[in-house]
């Protein structure tokens, strides 16, 4: 694979249960204060309560077109995009003179989870089409491009839990290949009754706050939110004299081709993705200061990640942030790539919320206290249903 050089990140925005902007979220990650609660937007009919990480505030973007009725997923994405554009020093009007692409990952945000509508149909009623119209108007990448009047490529990636990482990886290629001057990339997803029931029925949801990599871990907690980055060509950034906050150095993605809902037991696809991402970045495992693991808190995921980390990065500190955000599905890869960039810049990773005791079968412990990190590069890795494995190598921003 061709080594294309660093791609500049000039803006980052984040919305999740830990905070409605990146600064607040990072502060929350430092303190480790978390409070997953029963879902508030729908009434669970389960006899047991499974806590979730919902975005507490009523998020509404100012970029919603008049008369539009958009999904929560799109509102999260627009809101995070506003923060990222502001940080990049870009007004929407600035974008019209550039080739701007939009590449967003999602899972729930592209699914026809119209439970109430369908229930009414099943009951012989003719319900209003409002939820259908909302679905048709709320494809995440299309909705963002429409709000911005963007003229470049538009793509909604639906690779389950690696979608956000995949969207950033593909967007970085668009920049590297000169397809776009600027790309708005990331991931977004909302809490859904359908998904909530689905993960509970798969028996991988925890009734307690999740504990990634802990010996007592009992599954994941669902979350929601969005993470958006602004990627720019060197020429575009230089023209605007815009600071480079971080870089995307490499991206690797590989399929396990093993099982539709369980990772390869030896992490075959994950190792391929790591190798590809490091090759693309022109780095080796020794160059990686820390790793933001996928770390869902499920038995399978954490076991496989531990095997791979022990083999490829035995001395490298790692963290799971899902103890603070929950599993935000299609948004997770993007939110965690942003955390990785921010922590690399800050020179340290916080404790992994929920972790207290090492699992002797894993022989791998995430950071259990603030851990200083040195170096120029770090990894954010994402695993997904279907056996997708995606890895972003990110770097520190360079001076102009």
């Amino acid at each position, binding site marked *: 694979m061709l080594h294309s050089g660093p791609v500049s990140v000039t803006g980052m925005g984040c919305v999740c249960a830990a905070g409605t902007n990146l600064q607040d979220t990072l502060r929350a990650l430092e303190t480790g204060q978390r409070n997953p609660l029963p879902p508030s937007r729908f009434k669970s009919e389960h006899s047991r309560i499974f806590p979730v990480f919902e975005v507490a505030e009523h998020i509404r973007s100012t970029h919603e077109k008049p008369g539009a009725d958009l999904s929560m997923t799109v509102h999260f994405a627009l809101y995070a995009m506003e923060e990222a554009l502001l940080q990049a020093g870009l007004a929407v009007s600035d974008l019209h003179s550039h080739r701007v692409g939009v590449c967003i990952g999602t899972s729930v945000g592209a699914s026809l989870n119209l*439970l109430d509508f369908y229930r009414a149909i099943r009951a012989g009623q003719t319900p209003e089409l409002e939820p259908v119209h909302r679905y048709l108007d709320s494809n995440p990448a299309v909705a963002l491009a429409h709000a911005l009047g963007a003229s470049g490529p538009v793509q*909604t990636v639906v690779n389950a839990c690696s979608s956000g990482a995949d969207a950033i990886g593909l967007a970085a290629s668009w920049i590297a290949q000169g397809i776009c001057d600027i790309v708005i990339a990331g991931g977004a997803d909302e809490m859904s009754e359908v998904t909530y029931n689905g993960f509970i029925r798969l028996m991988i949801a925890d009734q307690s706050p999740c504990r990634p990599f802990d010996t007592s871990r009992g599954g994941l907690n669902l979350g929601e939110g969005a993470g958006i980055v602004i990627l720019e060509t060197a020429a575009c950034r230089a023209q605007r004299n815009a600071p480079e906050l971080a870089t995307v150095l490499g991206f690797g993605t590989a*399929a396990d081709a093993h099982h539709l809902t369980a990772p390869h037991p030896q992490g075959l696809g994950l190792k391929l993705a790591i190798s590809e991402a490091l090759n693309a970045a022109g780095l080796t495992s020794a160059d990686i200061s820390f790793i933001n693991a996928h770390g869902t808190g499920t038995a399978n995921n954490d076991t496989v990640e531990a095997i791979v980390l022990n083999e490829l990065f035995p001395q490298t500190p790692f963290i799971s942030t899902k103890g603070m955000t929950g599993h935000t599905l299609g948004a997770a890869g993007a939110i965690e790539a942003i955390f990785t960039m921010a922590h690399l810049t800050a020179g340290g990773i916080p404790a992994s919320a929920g972790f207290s005791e090492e699992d002797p079968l894993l022989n791998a412990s995430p950071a259990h206290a603030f851990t200083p990190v040195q170096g120029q590069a770090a990894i954010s890795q994402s695993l997904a249903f*279907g056996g997708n494995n995606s890895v972003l190598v990110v770097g520190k921003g360079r001076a102009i």
Partner: protein
Amino acid sequence: MRMAVEGMGIVSTVGNAPQDLARAARHILQEEGMPLAVSKIDTGDLARYASSRALRRVDHFTRMALLAAYSALEDAGLEAAELEHTGIILATGYGPVKLTFDFLDSIIDFGPEMASPQAFAHSVHNIPAATIALMMSLRGPCFSICQLDTAVTAAALAAQTWLAEKRVTRVLLGAVDEYTALLETNTQRIAESLPAESSGGRRRLVPGEGAVFFCLHADPGMARHGFIEAMPPAESFLDAPVFFSGSASPEQRKAFPQAHDLSPLYGNMPIGMAFDAAVALLAVREQLSPALEKCPAVHCLSRNRFGMTGRILVTSGECA
């Protein structure tokens, strides 16, 4: 970057062979507006490629995808075991809808505590592409793209991006959507609520279903069928015929003097552009004659409800 088309696989209501598609396209081009004979999708040929045990839990959407993907490989003279450095990209408008509603049915019928975990897991949008990777043992990149009317252009651009950076040497690029009665009811209700001129010309068009796969290679020498390339949209195309799908009204179609509407071939379908591209590959190899005379290039356009237009240029080898 032009991508060489090594092989093509079709699963459609007009038949699963390229000559079936050519016959249907000629009928539409010669007698635009005349009804076309269609039948139920038949994925029985999958038994030639996979065991019944391997297929026992595979849903209709994924069966269509698998059959089109295997057919594209066979058309290219390849077997799955020969594929190295191969990526998969699957474009869809709605994803595996039937399974999505199967899961909702199970919640409604049995309650959330007894809902079907399998229907939920398999309704996740990337499972069909993952099933192809699993059954063909492909460990390259595997992407699914979901958006109405522009998913095929987006998928083609992703394929070009991977081939250009040498992430892969070959891409299995496909597009799939499936019919459900609920989709038809909703589509009809929505279309009826719109004025005719803004319904995208699809007011009376029944939702379709089917799958198309292309086996694409970076090496121009591998082009058995011609080339496809995702391109930025343009104002006009005077040099070649246009196959226009998606939410384009008759007025918007008239802006292109050589525009053809092949939607009766595939129905109201967000990935109709993939069928247009397959027909275009037949056209540039003069297989639509006399309905469409020699044309070394065809522009495929698809417009979404917001007016965003995707474009794929299909060319013959001689149009290099």
